[in-house]
Protein backbone atom coordinates (compact mmCIF):
# COMPACT_ATOMS: atom_id res chain seq x y z
CA UNK A 1 0.00 0.00 0.00
CA UNK A 2 1.09 3.58 -0.64
CA UNK A 3 2.84 5.33 2.23
CA UNK A 4 0.24 8.14 2.09
CA UNK A 5 -2.53 5.67 3.02
CA UNK A 6 -0.55 3.93 5.78
CA UNK A 7 0.45 7.29 7.25
CA UNK A 8 -3.09 8.69 7.11
CA UNK A 9 -4.25 5.64 9.05
CA UNK A 10 -1.50 6.27 11.60
CA UNK A 11 -2.69 9.83 12.16
CA UNK A 12 -6.34 8.72 12.17
CA UNK A 13 -5.57 5.97 14.72
CA UNK A 14 -3.76 8.57 16.85
CA UNK A 15 -6.94 10.68 16.93
CA UNK A 16 -9.05 7.62 17.81
CA UNK A 17 -6.56 6.65 20.53
CA UNK A 18 -6.92 10.08 22.05
CA UNK A 19 -10.58 9.22 22.70
CA UNK A 20 -10.44 5.47 23.43
CA UNK A 21 -7.21 5.51 25.43
CA UNK A 22 -8.58 8.61 27.15
CA UNK A 23 -11.62 6.66 28.30
CA UNK A 24 -9.46 3.69 29.32
CA UNK A 25 -7.03 5.81 31.33
CA UNK A 26 -9.81 7.80 33.02
CA UNK A 27 -11.47 4.56 34.12
CA UNK A 28 -8.21 3.01 35.29
CA UNK A 29 -6.71 5.97 37.12
CA UNK A 30 -9.49 8.33 38.13
CA UNK A 31 -11.60 5.68 39.87
CA UNK A 32 -11.21 7.38 43.26
CA UNK A 33 -11.97 10.86 41.93
CA UNK A 34 -14.98 9.69 39.94
CA UNK A 35 -16.19 7.27 42.62
CA UNK A 36 -16.04 4.21 40.35
CA UNK A 37 -14.93 1.99 43.19
CA UNK A 38 -11.64 0.16 42.74
CA UNK A 39 -11.20 -0.12 38.98
CA UNK A 40 -8.54 -2.79 39.26
CA UNK A 41 -10.45 -5.08 41.61
CA UNK A 42 -11.32 -8.49 40.19
CA UNK A 43 -15.04 -7.78 40.32
CA UNK A 44 -14.79 -4.44 38.47
CA UNK A 45 -12.60 -5.93 35.77
CA UNK A 46 -15.09 -8.75 35.36
CA UNK A 47 -18.09 -6.43 35.17
CA UNK A 48 -16.44 -4.39 32.42
CA UNK A 49 -15.32 -7.41 30.48
CA UNK A 50 -18.89 -8.73 30.44
CA UNK A 51 -20.42 -5.48 29.19
CA UNK A 52 -20.91 -5.14 25.44
CA UNK A 53 -19.91 -1.46 25.37
CA UNK A 54 -16.57 -2.19 26.99
CA UNK A 55 -15.98 -5.20 24.79
CA UNK A 56 -16.46 -3.05 21.67
CA UNK A 57 -14.25 -0.29 23.09
CA UNK A 58 -11.50 -2.79 23.92
CA UNK A 59 -11.61 -4.42 20.50
CA UNK A 60 -11.32 -1.02 18.81
CA UNK A 61 -8.65 0.16 21.24
CA UNK A 62 -6.69 -3.02 20.59
CA UNK A 63 -6.96 -2.63 16.81
CA UNK A 64 -5.97 1.04 16.70
CA UNK A 65 -3.29 0.85 19.39
CA UNK A 66 -1.61 -2.09 17.67
CA UNK A 67 -1.67 -0.41 14.26
CA UNK A 68 -0.61 2.98 15.62
CA UNK A 69 2.23 1.65 17.76
CA UNK A 70 3.61 -0.72 15.17
CA UNK A 71 3.45 1.73 12.28
CA UNK A 72 5.31 4.21 14.51
CA UNK A 73 7.96 1.65 15.40
CA UNK A 74 8.30 0.70 11.72
CA UNK A 75 8.87 4.29 10.63
CA UNK A 76 11.40 4.86 13.39
CA UNK A 77 13.36 1.77 12.30
CA UNK A 78 13.08 2.86 8.66
CA UNK A 79 14.96 6.01 9.64
CA UNK A 80 18.07 4.02 10.45
CA UNK A 81 19.50 3.67 6.93
CA UNK A 82 18.22 0.17 6.20
CA UNK A 83 18.58 -1.41 2.80
CA UNK A 84 15.43 -2.07 0.79
CA UNK A 85 15.63 -5.71 1.84
CA UNK A 86 16.10 -4.69 5.48
CA UNK A 87 12.93 -2.59 5.25
CA UNK A 88 11.08 -5.57 3.81
CA UNK A 89 12.17 -7.74 6.75
CA UNK A 90 11.11 -5.06 9.27
CA UNK A 91 7.68 -4.70 7.63
CA UNK A 92 7.24 -8.46 7.68
CA UNK A 93 8.14 -8.74 11.38
CA UNK A 94 5.87 -5.81 12.22
CA UNK A 95 2.93 -7.48 10.45
CA UNK A 96 3.54 -10.82 12.22
CA UNK A 97 3.84 -9.15 15.64
CA UNK A 98 0.71 -7.11 14.89
CA UNK A 99 -1.32 -10.12 13.83
CA UNK A 100 -0.24 -12.03 16.93
CA UNK A 101 -1.17 -9.10 19.20
CA UNK A 102 -4.53 -8.71 17.47
CA UNK A 103 -5.47 -12.38 17.59
CA UNK A 104 -4.29 -12.96 21.14
CA UNK A 105 -5.77 -9.67 22.38
CA UNK A 106 -9.11 -10.29 20.70
CA UNK A 107 -9.13 -13.82 22.07
CA UNK A 108 -8.67 -12.45 25.61
CA UNK A 109 -11.38 -9.83 25.24
CA UNK A 110 -13.88 -12.24 23.69
CA UNK A 111 -13.32 -15.11 26.11
CA UNK A 112 -13.55 -12.61 28.94
CA UNK A 113 -16.86 -11.40 27.52
CA UNK A 114 -18.30 -14.90 26.96
CA UNK A 115 -17.05 -16.45 30.19
CA UNK A 116 -19.78 -17.53 32.58
CA UNK A 117 -18.27 -16.36 35.81
CA UNK A 118 -19.94 -14.76 38.72
Amino acid at each position, binding site marked *: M*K*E*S*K*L*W*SLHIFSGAILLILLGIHMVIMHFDKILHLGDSLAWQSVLTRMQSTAHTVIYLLLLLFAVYHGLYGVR*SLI*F*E*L*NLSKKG*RGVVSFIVVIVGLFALIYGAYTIITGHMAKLS
Partner: protein
Amino acid sequence: MAEKNLESKFETHLKDVTFKVLRYSGEGDSTKFEEYKVPVIGGMTVLEGLIYIKENLDNTLSWRASCRMGICGSCGMFINNFPMLACQTQIMDLNSDVIEIKPMPNYPIIKDLVPDLTKLIEKHKSIKPYILRNDNAPEEIEGEFYQGVEELERYEQFTFCIKCGICLAACPTVATAEEFTGPQALAQAYRYSVDTRDQGFDERKEVVDNPLGVFRCHFAGSCSEACPKGVDPALAIQLLKKAIVKDSLFGKKLVHDTKILPIKQENPKKKDNIPPAPPKSVE
Protein backbone atom coordinates in the same frame (compact mmCIF):
# COMPACT_ATOMS: atom_id res chain seq x y z
CA MET B 1 50.49 49.80 -1.44
CA ALA B 2 47.85 47.11 -1.06
CA GLU B 3 49.63 45.75 2.00
CA LYS B 4 49.76 49.15 3.61
CA ASN B 5 46.04 49.54 3.08
CA LEU B 6 45.42 46.18 4.70
CA GLU B 7 47.51 47.12 7.71
CA SER B 8 45.79 50.41 8.26
CA LYS B 9 42.45 48.73 7.77
CA PHE B 10 43.07 46.32 10.67
CA GLU B 11 44.70 48.97 12.88
CA THR B 12 41.28 50.23 13.81
CA HIS B 13 39.88 46.81 14.58
CA LEU B 14 37.25 46.40 17.28
CA LYS B 15 38.55 43.28 18.99
CA ASP B 16 40.38 40.00 18.46
CA VAL B 17 38.23 36.93 18.02
CA THR B 18 39.49 33.36 18.18
CA PHE B 19 38.37 31.24 15.26
CA LYS B 20 38.30 27.61 16.39
CA VAL B 21 38.10 25.71 13.12
CA LEU B 22 37.64 21.96 12.76
CA ARG B 23 40.31 20.72 10.37
CA TYR B 24 40.20 17.56 8.31
CA SER B 25 42.82 16.67 5.70
CA GLY B 26 40.41 14.77 3.49
CA GLU B 27 42.54 11.67 3.66
CA GLY B 28 40.62 9.63 6.18
CA ASP B 29 42.60 10.65 9.28
CA SER B 30 41.08 12.21 12.39
CA THR B 31 39.74 15.74 12.70
CA LYS B 32 41.18 18.34 15.08
CA PHE B 33 40.45 21.91 16.08
CA GLU B 34 42.91 24.62 15.15
CA GLU B 35 42.75 28.13 16.59
CA TYR B 36 43.40 31.41 14.80
CA LYS B 37 43.34 34.94 16.15
CA VAL B 38 41.41 37.23 13.85
CA PRO B 39 41.28 41.03 14.22
CA VAL B 40 37.68 42.01 13.64
CA ILE B 41 36.68 45.25 11.99
CA GLY B 42 33.17 46.66 11.73
CA GLY B 43 30.91 44.82 9.30
CA MET B 44 33.21 41.79 9.06
CA THR B 45 31.52 38.50 8.29
CA VAL B 46 32.62 35.02 9.32
CA LEU B 47 33.57 34.38 5.69
CA GLU B 48 35.79 37.46 5.73
CA GLY B 49 37.40 36.10 8.90
CA LEU B 50 38.16 32.87 7.08
CA ILE B 51 39.56 34.83 4.13
CA TYR B 52 41.77 36.74 6.58
CA ILE B 53 43.08 33.44 7.97
CA LYS B 54 43.78 32.05 4.52
CA GLU B 55 45.56 35.23 3.38
CA ASN B 56 47.56 35.91 6.52
CA LEU B 57 47.76 32.91 8.84
CA ASP B 58 47.27 29.55 7.15
CA ASN B 59 46.82 29.05 3.44
CA THR B 60 46.01 25.35 3.80
CA LEU B 61 42.55 26.04 5.24
CA SER B 62 39.73 25.07 2.85
CA TRP B 63 36.15 26.20 2.59
CA ARG B 64 33.68 26.82 -0.21
CA ALA B 65 32.34 30.26 -1.12
CA SER B 66 31.62 32.22 -4.20
CA CYS B 67 29.23 35.19 -4.21
CA ARG B 68 29.94 36.50 -0.67
CA MET B 69 26.41 37.91 -0.65
CA GLY B 70 24.08 35.08 0.36
CA ILE B 71 22.91 34.09 -3.08
CA CYS B 72 25.08 31.24 -4.39
CA GLY B 73 24.50 28.92 -1.44
CA SER B 74 28.11 27.70 -1.21
CA CYS B 75 29.22 28.77 2.25
CA GLY B 76 26.96 26.87 4.65
CA MET B 77 28.86 25.91 7.82
CA PHE B 78 28.21 25.00 11.45
CA ILE B 79 28.99 28.26 13.23
CA ASN B 80 28.79 28.11 17.04
CA ASN B 81 26.68 24.97 16.58
CA PHE B 82 24.13 26.48 14.23
CA PRO B 83 24.12 25.94 10.47
CA MET B 84 24.51 29.34 8.79
CA LEU B 85 25.88 31.03 5.70
CA ALA B 86 29.36 32.29 6.62
CA CYS B 87 29.01 35.25 4.27
CA GLN B 88 25.75 36.34 5.83
CA THR B 89 26.85 36.06 9.45
CA GLN B 90 28.32 39.13 11.12
CA ILE B 91 31.08 38.28 13.58
CA MET B 92 29.95 41.01 15.99
CA ASP B 93 26.40 39.65 15.93
CA LEU B 94 27.65 36.33 17.33
CA ASN B 95 28.54 38.22 20.51
CA SER B 96 31.34 35.86 21.41
CA ASP B 97 35.13 35.99 21.64
CA VAL B 98 35.44 32.45 20.36
CA ILE B 99 33.78 31.31 17.17
CA GLU B 100 33.67 27.58 16.66
CA ILE B 101 33.36 26.60 13.01
CA LYS B 102 32.70 23.06 11.88
CA PRO B 103 31.56 21.72 8.52
CA MET B 104 27.78 21.29 8.10
CA PRO B 105 26.46 18.15 9.80
CA ASN B 106 24.63 15.41 7.86
CA TYR B 107 27.02 15.55 4.90
CA PRO B 108 30.21 13.66 4.10
CA ILE B 109 33.19 16.01 4.42
CA ILE B 110 35.63 16.51 1.55
CA LYS B 111 38.17 18.67 3.40
CA ASP B 112 38.08 21.06 6.37
CA LEU B 113 34.83 23.05 5.98
CA VAL B 114 33.88 21.69 2.54
CA PRO B 115 30.87 19.36 2.61
CA ASP B 116 29.98 16.97 -0.21
CA LEU B 117 26.59 18.23 -1.42
CA THR B 118 26.03 15.50 -4.03
CA LYS B 119 23.09 13.97 -2.13
CA LEU B 120 21.37 17.36 -1.83
CA ILE B 121 21.60 17.94 -5.58
CA GLU B 122 20.49 14.38 -6.39
CA LYS B 123 17.43 14.74 -4.14
CA HIS B 124 16.66 18.12 -5.67
CA LYS B 125 16.86 16.66 -9.18
CA SER B 126 14.76 13.64 -8.23
CA ILE B 127 11.62 15.74 -7.73
CA LYS B 128 11.89 17.32 -11.20
CA PRO B 129 12.34 20.94 -10.15
CA TYR B 130 10.95 22.55 -13.30
CA ILE B 131 7.57 23.17 -14.91
CA LEU B 132 6.20 19.91 -16.29
CA ARG B 133 3.50 19.91 -18.98
CA ASN B 134 1.34 17.19 -20.51
CA ASP B 135 0.94 19.22 -23.68
CA ASN B 136 3.91 20.46 -25.63
CA ALA B 137 3.88 24.01 -24.41
CA PRO B 138 5.63 26.27 -25.18
CA GLU B 139 6.19 24.71 -28.63
CA GLU B 140 2.50 24.23 -29.38
CA ILE B 141 0.86 26.97 -27.42
CA GLU B 142 1.25 30.45 -28.73
CA GLY B 143 0.69 32.60 -25.77
CA GLU B 144 1.83 33.16 -22.26
CA PHE B 145 0.72 31.45 -19.07
CA TYR B 146 -1.30 33.85 -17.02
CA GLN B 147 -0.86 33.78 -13.26
CA GLY B 148 -2.63 35.94 -10.72
CA VAL B 149 -1.00 37.50 -7.68
CA GLU B 150 -2.68 35.03 -5.29
CA GLU B 151 -1.54 32.10 -7.39
CA LEU B 152 2.01 33.44 -7.30
CA GLU B 153 1.88 33.87 -3.54
CA ARG B 154 1.11 30.17 -3.07
CA TYR B 155 4.68 29.29 -3.95
CA GLU B 156 6.67 32.50 -4.14
CA GLN B 157 8.58 32.20 -0.87
CA PHE B 158 9.77 28.71 -1.82
CA THR B 159 11.46 30.10 -4.94
CA PHE B 160 13.91 31.96 -2.70
CA CYS B 161 15.73 28.67 -2.03
CA ILE B 162 19.41 28.88 -2.99
CA LYS B 163 20.17 25.17 -2.50
CA CYS B 164 22.65 25.83 0.29
CA GLY B 165 21.60 22.62 2.01
CA ILE B 166 21.49 24.23 5.45
CA CYS B 167 18.00 22.84 6.05
CA LEU B 168 19.28 19.29 5.59
CA ALA B 169 22.08 20.00 8.05
CA ALA B 170 19.47 21.13 10.58
CA CYS B 171 17.02 18.27 9.99
CA PRO B 172 16.91 15.61 12.74
CA THR B 173 15.40 13.06 10.35
CA VAL B 174 18.16 13.48 7.76
CA ALA B 175 20.61 13.01 10.66
CA THR B 176 19.67 9.34 10.90
CA ALA B 177 17.93 8.65 7.58
CA GLU B 178 20.37 9.55 4.81
CA GLU B 179 17.89 8.64 2.10
CA PHE B 180 15.00 10.76 3.44
CA THR B 181 14.12 13.15 0.60
CA GLY B 182 14.71 16.10 2.94
CA PRO B 183 13.26 19.61 3.36
CA GLN B 184 14.96 21.26 0.38
CA ALA B 185 13.69 18.84 -2.28
CA LEU B 186 10.28 18.39 -0.64
CA ALA B 187 9.74 22.15 -0.51
CA GLN B 188 10.61 22.34 -4.21
CA ALA B 189 8.29 19.43 -5.00
CA TYR B 190 5.51 21.51 -3.49
CA ARG B 191 6.71 24.75 -5.07
CA TYR B 192 6.46 23.34 -8.61
CA SER B 193 3.34 21.24 -8.07
CA VAL B 194 1.32 24.19 -6.78
CA ASP B 195 2.44 26.46 -9.62
CA THR B 196 -0.58 26.99 -11.89
CA ARG B 197 1.60 26.59 -14.98
CA ASP B 198 2.64 23.10 -13.89
CA GLN B 199 1.00 19.72 -14.51
CA GLY B 200 3.58 17.48 -12.84
CA PHE B 201 1.93 16.68 -9.50
CA ASP B 202 1.43 12.99 -10.37
CA GLU B 203 5.04 12.52 -11.42
CA ARG B 204 6.40 14.16 -8.29
CA LYS B 205 3.97 12.24 -6.09
CA GLU B 206 5.50 9.01 -7.39
CA VAL B 207 8.88 10.24 -6.15
CA VAL B 208 7.87 11.35 -2.65
CA ASP B 209 4.98 9.03 -1.67
CA ASN B 210 7.23 6.24 -0.42
CA PRO B 211 8.59 4.98 2.93
CA LEU B 212 11.49 7.47 2.91
CA GLY B 213 9.62 10.35 1.30
CA VAL B 214 7.47 13.20 2.55
CA PHE B 215 5.76 11.17 5.31
CA ARG B 216 8.99 10.70 7.25
CA CYS B 217 8.86 14.38 8.22
CA HIS B 218 8.01 14.67 11.94
CA PHE B 219 7.51 18.40 11.71
CA ALA B 220 10.41 19.29 13.97
CA GLY B 221 10.57 22.58 12.05
CA SER B 222 14.37 22.91 12.31
CA CYS B 223 14.67 23.46 8.55
CA SER B 224 12.54 26.60 8.71
CA GLU B 225 14.36 27.81 11.80
CA ALA B 226 17.72 27.50 10.04
CA CYS B 227 16.97 28.59 6.47
CA PRO B 228 19.02 31.72 5.76
CA LYS B 229 16.66 32.85 2.99
CA GLY B 230 13.49 32.92 5.06
CA VAL B 231 12.01 29.95 3.22
CA ASP B 232 9.63 27.84 5.33
CA PRO B 233 10.31 24.31 4.04
CA ALA B 234 8.42 22.74 6.96
CA LEU B 235 5.25 24.53 5.83
CA ALA B 236 5.73 23.34 2.24
CA ILE B 237 6.14 19.77 3.49
CA GLN B 238 2.90 19.81 5.50
CA LEU B 239 1.04 21.32 2.51
CA LEU B 240 2.55 18.64 0.28
CA LYS B 241 1.42 15.91 2.70
CA LYS B 242 -2.06 17.40 2.58
CA ALA B 243 -2.15 17.52 -1.22
CA ILE B 244 -0.93 13.93 -1.52
CA VAL B 245 -3.33 12.57 1.11
CA LYS B 246 -6.24 14.37 -0.59
CA ASP B 247 -5.25 12.73 -3.85
CA SER B 248 -4.58 9.23 -2.58
CA LEU B 249 -7.56 9.03 -0.19
CA PHE B 250 -10.21 11.09 -1.93
CA GLY B 251 -8.96 11.22 -5.52
CA LYS B 252 -8.80 15.02 -5.40
CA LYS B 253 -5.94 15.85 -7.73
CA LEU B 254 -3.84 18.97 -7.56
CA VAL B 255 -4.61 20.10 -11.10
CA HIS B 256 -4.59 23.58 -12.46
CA ASP B 257 -6.49 24.96 -15.37
CA THR B 258 -3.71 27.05 -16.77
CA LYS B 259 -4.96 30.27 -18.26
CA ILE B 260 -3.19 31.18 -21.45
CA LEU B 261 -2.99 34.71 -22.76
CA PRO B 262 -2.32 34.94 -26.48
CA ILE B 263 0.77 37.04 -27.16
CA LYS B 264 0.17 37.64 -30.84
CA GLN B 265 -2.44 40.34 -30.93
CA GLU B 266 -3.48 41.54 -34.34
CA ASN B 267 -3.91 45.21 -33.48
CA PRO B 268 -2.48 45.80 -30.04
CA LYS B 269 -4.46 48.65 -28.56
CA LYS B 270 -2.59 51.09 -26.38
CA LYS B 271 -4.30 52.29 -23.24
CA ASP B 272 -4.96 56.03 -23.21
CA ASN B 273 -3.49 56.67 -19.78
CA ILE B 274 0.04 55.47 -20.63
CA PRO B 275 2.33 58.49 -20.99
CA PRO B 276 4.66 58.70 -24.00
CA ALA B 277 8.25 57.46 -23.61
CA PRO B 278 10.82 60.12 -22.63
CA PRO B 279 13.08 61.41 -25.40
CA LYS B 280 16.29 59.42 -26.07
CA SER B 281 19.20 60.66 -23.96
CA VAL B 282 21.84 58.69 -25.92
CA GLU B 283 22.05 58.41 -29.67
